[in-house]
């Protein structure tokens, strides 16, 4: 007959030191909850900030312009090829690409559905600096269709003033359906129309981007200019707040998009705080497990004579230890399960009420958080099992 815990529980002094046991369990619950919340928050921050900022493979992408001051006002503040090469040569700058603008008049209208027409500027940049790069974002001479990547900030601005102008508001998903007539004017005023359509929305670059091939061709054909100097340069750097970069920018009187830098800093700080919280929760879990192990040691020490007698009567030490250890599995399952449910509830509240159910964040815990809970459960059971076995075999 298999030994059940009920058969032997009367011989164990389980009632002793209940406070230590209770604190162990409460501590474990709090520790697991903190750890799950910090893991989930770390994932949330990554997901939320990736959608806004886009550090690609751990790099920051920042736009540089030359500061316009009273002294240089009126002179050309654009970047020459030599400027770009100098920027690229710096060790703290991984890569740099000029942002070239149109050297001809361009005008966009959206047809009869959205009665909207505006002069606009077009820019282009090397594809590897784009955060979203659809396969359709390319152009060949003769192609009537021009793909456009639109700035998310511009879309937001448009949506702000659109209702006042009697224009429909547009979502990121629906903007692709809008047919744009792109009119390019040559130096003599001749007009060429292209069919434009927005293929993606960029969080990184505040501009209206067209493929490099199109702008190079259009600048040459409509503006009669080749090798256009860049008004802005995008740089790729591992640390936007690095001392080397900051001093270089100051020395060259280059201006950066401070919001992005600050945002990167905020993200770093947030992740730092959440990581520290994660570390702290691991400490809490370890302390709780230690407290519980003291309880187990005390229970076994106080039941030492009875346990020894059970073994003398023929109870196998390994069966006895696994029977005692099994008793705590439901307890661990309840504690970790409750912490998991509470973490899910907190995440749901965060997702629903603090970021208003934005689609970028699932209302459910990330699988990694669930995996952490499973690993914790296995860890607790394994530690418990090992400890009881060790304590019981020491009595043999």
């Amino acid at each position: 007959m298999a030994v059940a815990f009920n058969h032997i529980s009367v011989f164990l002094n389980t009632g002793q030191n209940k406070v230590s046991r209770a604190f162990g369990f409460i501590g474990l619950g709090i520790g697991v909850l903190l750890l799950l919340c910090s893991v989930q928050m770390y994932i949330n921050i990554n997901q939320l900030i990736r959608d806004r900022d886009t550090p690609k493979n751990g790099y920051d992408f920042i736009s540089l312009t030359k500061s316009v001051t009273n002294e240089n006002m009126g002179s050309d503040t654009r970047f020459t090829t030599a400027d770009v090469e100098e920027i690229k040569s710096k060790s703290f700058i991984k890569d740099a690409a000029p942002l070239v603008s149109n050297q001809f008049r361009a005008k966009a209208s959206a047809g009869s559905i959205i009665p909207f027409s505006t002069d606009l500027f077009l820019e282009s940049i090397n594809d590897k600096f784009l955060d979203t790069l659809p396969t359709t974002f390319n152009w060949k001479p003769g192609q009537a269709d021009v793909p456009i990547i639109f700035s998310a900030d511009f879309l937001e601005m448009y949506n702000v003033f659109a209702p006042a102008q009697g224009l429909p508001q547009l979502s990121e998903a629906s903007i692709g359906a809008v047919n744009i007539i792109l009119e390019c004017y040559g130096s003599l005023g001749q007009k060429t129309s292209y069919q434009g359509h927005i293929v993606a929305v960029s969080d990184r670059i505040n501009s209206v981007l067209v493929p490099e091939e199109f702008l190079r061709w259009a600048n040459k054909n409509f503006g009669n200019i080749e090798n256009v100097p860049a008004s802005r340069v995008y740089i790729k750097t591992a640390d936007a707040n690095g001392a080397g970069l900051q001093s270089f920018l100051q020395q060259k009187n280059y201006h950066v998009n401070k919001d992005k830098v600050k945002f990167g800093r905020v993200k770093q700080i947030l992740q730092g705080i959440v990581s520290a919280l994660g570390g702290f929760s691991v400490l809490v879990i370890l302390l709780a497990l230690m407290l519980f192990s003291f309880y187990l040691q005390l229970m076994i020490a106080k039941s030492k004579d009875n346990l020894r007698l059970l073994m003398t009567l023929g109870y196998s030490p390994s069966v006895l230890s696994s029977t005692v250890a099994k008793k705590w599995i439901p307890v661990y399952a309840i504690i970790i399960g409750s912490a998991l449910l509470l973490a899910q509830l907190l995440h749901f509240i965060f997702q629903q009420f603090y970021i208003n159910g934005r689609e970028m964040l699932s209302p459910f815990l990330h699988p990694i958080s669930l995996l952490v809970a499973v690993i914790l459960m296995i860890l607790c059971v394994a530690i418990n099992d090992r400890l009881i076995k060790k304590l019981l075999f020491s009595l043999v």
Partner: protein
Amino acid sequence: MESFVLKNIIPDFLETEKVIGSEIWNQDILISKGQKIQVIAPSGSGKTSLVHFIYGLRKDYNGQVLFDGNDVKSFSAEKLSGFRRSFMSIVFQDLRLFPEQTARQNIEVKRLLEPFASSERMEYMTALLGIQSKLDQPAKLCSYGEQQRIAIVRALQQPFDLLVLDEPFSHLDESNREKAMLLIQEEVAARNATMLLVDLKPIEYFNADRILHL
């Protein structure tokens, strides 16, 4: 288990003069299955030590206790517990009951481990030995004689090939001694087991096949 052998056992602590002349110490004794052995030993001759050596509780001796050729000293903790569960039962001189637990819990803890006797048979045994009314009383509140009977009933709950009894009737009156002895022999016969009874003097109602003086 077909046989057990006490092979040249000499306790580490025993004076040489007590070894010389003993029919057990430093002797080669083969006990076959089903034999009833009475060991008569005066106080201080190592009687309880012998019981503990056989049961695998102590190893402070030279020589071997062999069960079917296997030395009990070489048994692992797991093997020894399996052996005590299914092949060997014991009544200790110091009884070794759980004092805080009831008589029933003390008996059931053995019966549930590997039941041989049914619960009805257990009830019958306690009734026969006059401790049925004490079943739900903590062992520590029972008299020594009652505790002795609880220990006897507990030893009879499991299957065994060898039953070892260390002064099992020291606190029993004649009537209870007779009843207990008859019950024990009945249970031993039901299992075709070997019985080794160790006491200070010959026990009445026990038809030993062999008497050895320690």
